[in-house]
């Protein structure tokens, strides 16, 4: 059993407020990802959980115990660093046992633990080598081995994959997921890569400018982003934002978009709107919710609304094709199946899945 609870945590460097009241929790065995652009405070938050940074105010509890003033070594945590931080003068084995040596674990027990972890991570042949003789992926494994051998209450990962090349990163991501599955330890994982966060985490905390914008399950973060920042940050290509007005057609509310020829097209709103919905809106649509319109589609997806757009650019990636579409004064990106990709210069009728669309208040940037 191990949980992490953070209450109104603040961090100041002089007059600069780095963290502005963070509330966060991780249940036993949960995998929480802290994601956000660089400078959002996610690494500082992790360092504070580890005890490497002091707490200005608020509280951090591990298993209910207040650890604000507890030294890192007494928090029963293990951490994997972005740089791996392997001790360069020690062999892999010595790297793994260093923590146990510090804690005066008896030798036979150490050997046992090294054997178990090395087998688990398949690094037995590397035990006698120095970190300098290892490849990036191997170093990564050793760094994880050093953390695993402790059997700690809490695993902390600080962007562990960002020093690997693209292919290896995907492999290691899968490895980490498997690892968490097998070990089942409560984990806090910092990353700036929203894909990593989406694939690994059971809950994601999206951070921006020192505060948590949304803390929820990946599906909720993706489908119902709390505000325009979260909506824009999660997902690639990013969500399209279209400024619009609240309209009405046949007694039903619509999102009124102005098109290139000065006309207004009303897209029916599927969701029920609160009474204080502002006149001005921002319509958020993810690229994959834009289709080529056909009647069959409308039968399958009842929320589909039609609108015409000009195809400005087509970017095939193989599995799918991105198209830059001009809608009035705005450019939006659509994600198409290669078979139904529109051609450049063509005017297409798009089917927009309004059931999946998000509406934002342009002044507060919040989801309506």
């Amino acid at each position, binding site marked *: 059993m191990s949980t992490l609870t953070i209450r109104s945590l603040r961090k100041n460097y002089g007059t600069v407020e780095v963290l502005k009241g963070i509330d966060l929790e991780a249940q036993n065995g949960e995998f929480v990802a802290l994601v956000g652009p660089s400078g959002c405070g996610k690494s500082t938050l992790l360092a504070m959980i*580890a005890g490497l940074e002091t707490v200005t105010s608020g509280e951090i509890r591990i298993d209910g115990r207040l650890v604000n003033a507890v030294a890192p*070594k007494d928090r029963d945590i293990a*951490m994997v660093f972005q740089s791996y*931080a392997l001790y*360069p003068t020690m062999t892999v084995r010595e790297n793994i046992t260093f923590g146990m040596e510090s804690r005066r674990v008896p030798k036979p027990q150490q050997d046992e633990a090294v054997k178990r972890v090395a087998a688990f991570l398949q690094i037995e042949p590397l035990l006698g080598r120095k970190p300098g003789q290892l490849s990036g992926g191997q170093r990564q494994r050793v760094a994880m081995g050093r953390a695993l051998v402790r059997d700690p209450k809490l695993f902390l990962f600080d962007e562990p994959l960002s020093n690997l090349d693209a292919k290896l990163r995907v492999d290691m991501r899968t490895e980490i997921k498997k690892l968490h599955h097998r070990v089942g330890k409560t984990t806090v994982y910092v990353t700036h890569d929203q894909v990593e966060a989406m694939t690994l985490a059971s809950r994601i905390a999206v951070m921006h400018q020192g505060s948590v914008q949304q803390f929820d399950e990946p599906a909720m973060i993706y489908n119902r982003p709390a505000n325009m920042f979260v909506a824009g940050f999660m997902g690639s290509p990013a969500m399209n934002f279209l400024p619009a007005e609240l309209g009405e057609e046949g007694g039903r509310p619509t999102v009124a978009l102005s098109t290139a020829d000065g006309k207004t097209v009303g897209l029916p709103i599927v969701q029920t709107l609160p009474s204080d919905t502002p006149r001005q809106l921002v319509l958020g649509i993810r690229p994959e919710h834009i289709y080529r319109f056909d009647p069959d589609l409308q039968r399958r997806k009842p929320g589909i609304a039609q609108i015409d757009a000009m195809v400005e650019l087509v970017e095939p990636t193989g599995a799918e094709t991105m198209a830059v579409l001009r809608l009035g004064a705005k450019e939006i990106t659509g994600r198409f199946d290669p078979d139904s990709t529109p051609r450049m210069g063509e005017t297409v009728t798009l089917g927009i899945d309004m059931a999946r669309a998000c509406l934002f208040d342009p002044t507060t940037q919040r989801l309506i």
Partner: protein
Amino acid sequence: MVDAALDRSLDHRAATVTARRHLLTRLVIYGLLVVFAAIYLVPLLVVVLNSFRDQQEIARNGLISLPRSFRLEAWSQAWSTYCIGGTCEGMQRNFYNSLKMTIPATIISTTVGAMNGYILSKWRFKGSEALFTLMLLGVFIPGQISLMPWAFILGNLGLSNSTYGLIVIHVIQGISFTTLFCRNYYVSIPDDLIKAARIDGAGFWRIFRKIILPLSSPILIVTVIWQFTGIWNEYLFGVVFTSGQQQPITAALVALTASGTNVRAYDVMSAAVLIGALPPLLIYLFGGKYFVRGLTQGAIK
């Protein structure tokens, strides 16, 4: 086809010209280097040759001329029997004085410098940068300025005219340099290592011993060479704060040249100078390549 062949021959000619010009440049560079090396080496050569020449022969043929005799007597005289200011023991006592002063002062100042560097780079605290700046001042303050204060301190400590007094001076005067060297080197060691070790349960000393020290050999070699040669060659404090049998070899060398007899014993003087210069020379010969490597390491990485 023709064009291609023409091109190739042109290429070939251009390559030859480049190669020839390259060779010429090399020749000029090496020629100049040889000339300068000779200029630097001639004084040393003169002293080395004179230390093996007979005093009479030096008097006859002049200080700078090729040797017509070879004897080792000057060396043994300089070492153990030559008379300086009334005592006829040669330089050996002063040589040992210098060793007794230089070795502990080097070890202590290097150790303190490494500790300071470790703290100032990896365990920063409020005001540590200011403290470092203040310590750096010591690098720029000439030794002469501190002569009076040192005289006062050594007097109060009862350490005037003793090797221990000189050790104290050299340790403290050297800390600025050793701290600067070590601190700047340790700054390049990633902080993540320290963080990882702290989470691993290692404390201040264990991190120093197990992580920092094993990475320190380049900078420790630099610091030791720097301190050893600096302290060994230091003259001012030696001559001011010690006299007679307590003097380090640099001070004694001056006493030797000033000692009373009419005849200038150039052979003995040469041998004595060489004896005095030998330890730093040996240190540099054995450690020189590490010295250069250590000084440039930060730049390459």
